[in-house]
């Protein structure tokens, strides 16, 4: 997944968001070994210290853990990954709902339009 980092928000936060997405998408599989901090920083074209900070934070969050000599690994805890997926989805959904509210959609009307669009999408 290409890194699309914007410079007007702290990069540290954006790195976490990006990697959470990659974990949920399965780009990084549970238990998979991560490249080194420097490699990741080079891939993302960001400062290594910032990358380190982001990775440490994700370790703290439990999404990763590091073995002293062999490096960093994605968590094997599939339920945690599922919970993250739900959380990310929840974030997107609230944003969606807020957008829809601004357009004037809510409740049943919203569900109808939603189902219609979903059917259209499946037909393609």
């Amino acid at each position, binding site marked *: 997944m290409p890194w699309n980092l914007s410079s007007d928000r702290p990069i540290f936060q954006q790195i976490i968001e990006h990697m959470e997405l990659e974990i949920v998408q399965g780009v990084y599989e549970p238990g998979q070994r991560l490249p080194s901090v420097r490699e990741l920083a080079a891939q993302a074209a960001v*400062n290594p210290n910032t990358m380190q900070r982001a990775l440490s934070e994700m370790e703290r969050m439990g999404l990763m853990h590091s073995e002293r000599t062999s490096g960093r690994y994605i968590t094997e805890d599939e339920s945690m990954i599922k919970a993250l997926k739900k959380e990310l989805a929840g974030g997107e959904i609230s944003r969606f709902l807020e957008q829809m509210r601004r357009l004037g959609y809510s409740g049943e009307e919203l569900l109808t339009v939603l189902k219609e669009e979903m059917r259209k999408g499946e037909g393609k």
Partner: protein
Amino acid sequence: MMEQQNAQMPLADLRNVSLNYDGRFLALSDLTLTLEPGRIYGLLGPNGSGKTTLIKILAGLLTQTAGTVTIGGCPVGPETKAHVSYLPDRPFLESGMTVEEAMALYADFYQDFDMQRAEDMLERLKLGKRSRLNKLSKGTLEKVQLILVMSRKADLYLLDEPIAGVDPAARDYILETIISNYDPKATILISTHLISDVEKILDDVIMLQYGRLLHKASVEDMRAERGESIDAIFRKEFKC
């Protein structure tokens, strides 16, 4: 001397540094700042703000007219030059040399030169070692110079406008090279006016204006505080 450095000690320490050019023009005025190991600094400022002067003083090309400058606890001289790797903003190698000869020169004069690292990076460029420097394209020559400078395991890297006048692909290559060679014990100081391209790899920015220190702050803190990129902040600060 350079080895006596510990984690608390700054790598470069400038105190009340001024440089009076020809007795007329103050290129740097009472500048006090420190550079810590393991951090990548961006040196920003409009033309004439003293960026190049500061870098040249750290490199040992210019001597300050007031104040003290120490690198690793030593005043600037041959001992510090052995641990400072400087990339000027123009071709600085003898054009008649081959790439191989340039590498040999670096290996000969600098104990900290890592020949293997240089060869690996050159191989990625698919560059023949026997190519003469004056036969290389401008972009390729800049990459070669960068490779030589970054192949040294120096304590302080001084990069003067490393990505100016270079195409976007080469720019990415250069930034990637800088990141990949990152050493938590070393300091990198990048002087640039192309802030938006470089700001994602910086830890801190040092902003100069009229030879004085305007700001020195962490990039992430500034972004969090102002909700803007450093580039945007800079444009506002130095609006004509």
